């Protein structure tokens, strides 16, 4: 957990925004990879998974934040796990009722949202220390950031692996899809490539900042 709780601070745009970019759960914090890489072989699956996770994040943050003064420290992890598992079960049944196709595509991985470290991490390090609205805003930011990351993975894999986006063909008939992209190795490769891009951006920003600093301190 990288930051300390700041209870007295009001909600700033940063409460919401940091989850999307600077503390993006997937690309920066490398959390919650396990149950998600497997289902990002198409854009629609990625969106479904992202929304489901966002819902669980919001629900568990709300409840944990609401009960934060009631839960004794010794049983907090057990309480969080039960709360998270409840919301995941709800989402599981909801998706099943809404769309059989999506449910079959996601399979057991909806239930595996329980083991997504992002959610437990939010409950433990943020919701248990902050007011309800603030926790909710932060959870929403994290959820959006998570969905964004899945979308990045899912769209690239679908475009390269099936030559479609959201099911619509993008290229002509002559396009030979890179089937490997929608298979497990493709998940690793695309994630690796996105991580490269992110660390390159980060390095460039740092270099720029260093240069500016140098310019300020330069004599004359």
């Amino acid at each position, binding site marked *: 957990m990288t930051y300390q709780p700041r209870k007295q601070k009001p909600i700033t745009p940063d409460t919401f925004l940091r989850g999307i970019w600077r503390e993006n759960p997937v690309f920066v914090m490398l959390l919650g990879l396990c149950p998600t890489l497997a289902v990002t072989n198409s854009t629609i699956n990625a969106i479904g998974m992202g929304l489901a996770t966002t819902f669980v994040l919001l629900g568990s943050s709300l409840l944990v934040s609401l009960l934060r003064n009631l839960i004794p420290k010794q049983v907090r992890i057990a309480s969080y796990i039960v709360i998270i*598992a409840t919301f995941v079960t709800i989402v599981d049944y909801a998706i099943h009722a809404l769309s059989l196709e999506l449910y079959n595509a996601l399979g057991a991985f909806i239930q595996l949202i329980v*083991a997504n470290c992002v959610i437990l991490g939010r409950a433990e390090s943020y919701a248990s220390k902050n007011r309800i609205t603030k926790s909710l805003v932060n959870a929403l930011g994290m959820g959006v950031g998570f969905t964004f990351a899945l979308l990045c993975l899912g769209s690239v894999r679908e475009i390269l692996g099936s030559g479609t986006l959201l099911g619509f063909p993008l290229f002509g008939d002559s396009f030979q899809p890179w089937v*490997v992209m929608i298979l497990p190795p493709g998940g690793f490769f695309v994630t690796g490539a996105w991580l490269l891009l992110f660390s390159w951006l980060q390095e460039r920003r740092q270099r720029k900042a260093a240069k500016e600093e140098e310019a300020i301190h330069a004599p004359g």
Partner: protein
Amino acid sequence: MHPGDLSFIFLNAFIINNFVLAYFLGLCPFLGVSGKLDTAWNMGLATTFVMFVSSVCAYGINLLLVKYDLVFLRLICYIAVIASAVQLVEMMVKKFSPTLFRALGIFLPLITTNCAILGLALFQTFKEYSFLQSIVYSIGAGAGFTLALMLMAGLRTRMDLADVPAISRGAALSFMLAGMLSLTFMGFAGLGGH
């Protein structure tokens, strides 16, 4: 081979549908503790052990839940019971076998919320495995996890000496390596399909 054969279940969990390389389960420890070979081995052992324990627990719970028609509580029960079972085991190992505890101890709490454990419990339920099949499946999955972890550790020790661009050091490179491993393991698909 028939999909229900014990030997096939083992092979399937071990290499064909390796938990890490085909299902992406247990990626956090896979990336986190695959730095050294001996740590990877211990982690693998501990995970196999926990998988075995939770597989037995999950089988029992599922029997009960199906009997009383409460399958919708499955997820909540699984995660709660597995987490507490692992903690109990940890305490017992600590008390009765300090040597074993020293080897596995620090990893046990890490593993409890490893997605591979819950994944195993859920998959064995969805595949409707019998008690014996579940146990074989859990051992196969654990062995597969250990194999993937050790292969990765071996690769990474070598990659430490390689001259790669600074930005690709760390996670990005690990993912690329894992991708290649996963590609290799795809060659096992189709085993036992005749």
